[in-house]
């Protein structure tokens, strides 16, 4: 059996231990580095105990959240205060008021730590240029396209630096674009800005993570032109928890296969098999069923298995149990391939 079959991976965030989350915003740089490193070790231990093939960056312990982390490291953008995103959820939305310039690497601390630990099986999530643009006020650039492309250049600079530090080994990069399909008329902006992010960088495997899309078809339409190798998508949240159901949540796997067939490049799918918004631990049988459904359309060397999204909203115990069942189910499916 090919060792590349059905590799298991996480998507990014994991619940921070309380000793880190309670103090996160009040820590100075050294204290944060120390506690985030400790939390990263512990999270990697959990991941390895669960049996994950790819450990990501150990749960994004250095990051408060995916938007604020990078924009606080940029010049040309200011934060006036929290802004409602939906319902009663708020985030610190930045206003782009000048030409953007990266003044500090976003994720160098994480990759330095992982290299020190001699971990090879990592994947670095980076917030994508379109989402950074969409979640910011634009008060400087001509239009949304121009701002997205500027973020694309900045993300490119970040990835290039991480790759240079990483050395010759293949580096897995995951571009997180939850906003990718929220404005159907802007898919050209999504396409161009993501491609700009990875332009002329060799030795990386590019993953794109999109979740809770109103229509994955919008994304699938640009798959042939996107410089992306793996699409890590959410499916479990839209599926039934009933083992005997028709796997309606996975209907888009077939549509992905159709999009995949249009391009001659080898691309693959990261299949979301566990819902990060509920505490129910999906059973091994249910996850096996979901994987087997996807295998009807996607070859096992092009299919990776992951949660729908980052597990930060679940407790560490629930997160671990979900990952453990995910790995166990994958191993059982592998036995019969």
């Amino acid at each position, binding site marked *: 059996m090919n060792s590349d079959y059905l590799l298991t991976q996480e998507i990014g965030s994991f619940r921070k231990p309380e000793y880190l989350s309670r103090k996160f915003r009040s820590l100075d740089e050294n204290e944060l580095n120390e506690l985030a490193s400790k939390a990263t070790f512990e999270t990697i231990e959990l991941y390895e105990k669960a049996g994950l093939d790819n450990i990501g960056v150990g749960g994004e312990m250095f990051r408060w959240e995916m938007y604020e982390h990078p924009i606080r490291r940029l010049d040309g953008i200011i934060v*006036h*205060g929290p*802004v409602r995103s*939906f319902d009663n959820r708020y985030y610190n939305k930045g*206003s782009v008021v000048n030409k953007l310039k990266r003044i500090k690497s976003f994720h160098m601390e994480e990759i330095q730590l992982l290299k020190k630990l001699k971990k090879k099986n990592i994947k670095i999530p980076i917030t994508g240029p379109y989402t950074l643009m969409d979640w910011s*006020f634009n*008060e400087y650039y001509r239009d949304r396209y121009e701002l997205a492309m500027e973020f694309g250049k900045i993300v490119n600079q970040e990835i290039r630096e991480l790759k240079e530090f990483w050395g010759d080994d293949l580096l897995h990069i995951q571009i997180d674009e939850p906003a990718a399909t929220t*404005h159907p*008329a802007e898919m050209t902006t999504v396409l161009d800005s993501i491609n700009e992010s990875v332009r002329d960088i060799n030795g990386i495997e590019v993953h794109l993570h999109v979740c809770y899309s109103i229509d994955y078809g919008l994304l699938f339409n640009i798959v042939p032109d996107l410089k992306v190798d793996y699409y890590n998508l959410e499916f479990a949240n839209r599926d039934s928890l009933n083992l005997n159901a028709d796997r309606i949540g996975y209907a888009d796997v077939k549509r992905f296969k159709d999009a995949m067939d249009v391009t001659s490049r080898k691309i693959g799918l990261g299949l979301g098999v566990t819902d990060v918004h509920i505490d129910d631990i999906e059973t091994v049988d249910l996850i096996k069923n979901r994987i087997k459904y996807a295998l009807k359309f996607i070859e096992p060397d092009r299919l990776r298995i992951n949660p729908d999204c980052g597990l930060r909203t679940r407790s560490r115990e629930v997160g671990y149990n979900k990952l453990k069942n995910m790995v166990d189910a994958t191993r059982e499916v592998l036995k019969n391939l």
Partner: protein
Amino acid sequence: MNNNELKQDETIVPPIAHDCQRVFLRIPLNSKNSHINSLKVYSLITEDPYLSSKYSNLPGYFALDSTSTKLENDLPGELKRFVDDFPELLITHNNYLDFLPRKIADKKVELLGGVA
């Protein structure tokens, strides 16, 4: 307006999240059918008070941008250009202010109040 016409306009401006309000306003204004002539509201608020005045008793004007943290510090100056044409003009913002940081929203409300 019947359902078919509504669907047609929704395809022009998809009714997604923060654009909902604009969709609502653009349906009558973009239509080339007779409904626009029969539109009767007390006040129609748009980016163009001249257009608004054709279809409502009290023209309205989006003077504050709720999607930008940039402050409209020259609001009185901007409004002066309408003074001769509109003895009465309803002035407001173009979307909910709770999608702005609170301190910016407060300043915008102060600017609005200051105009009166």
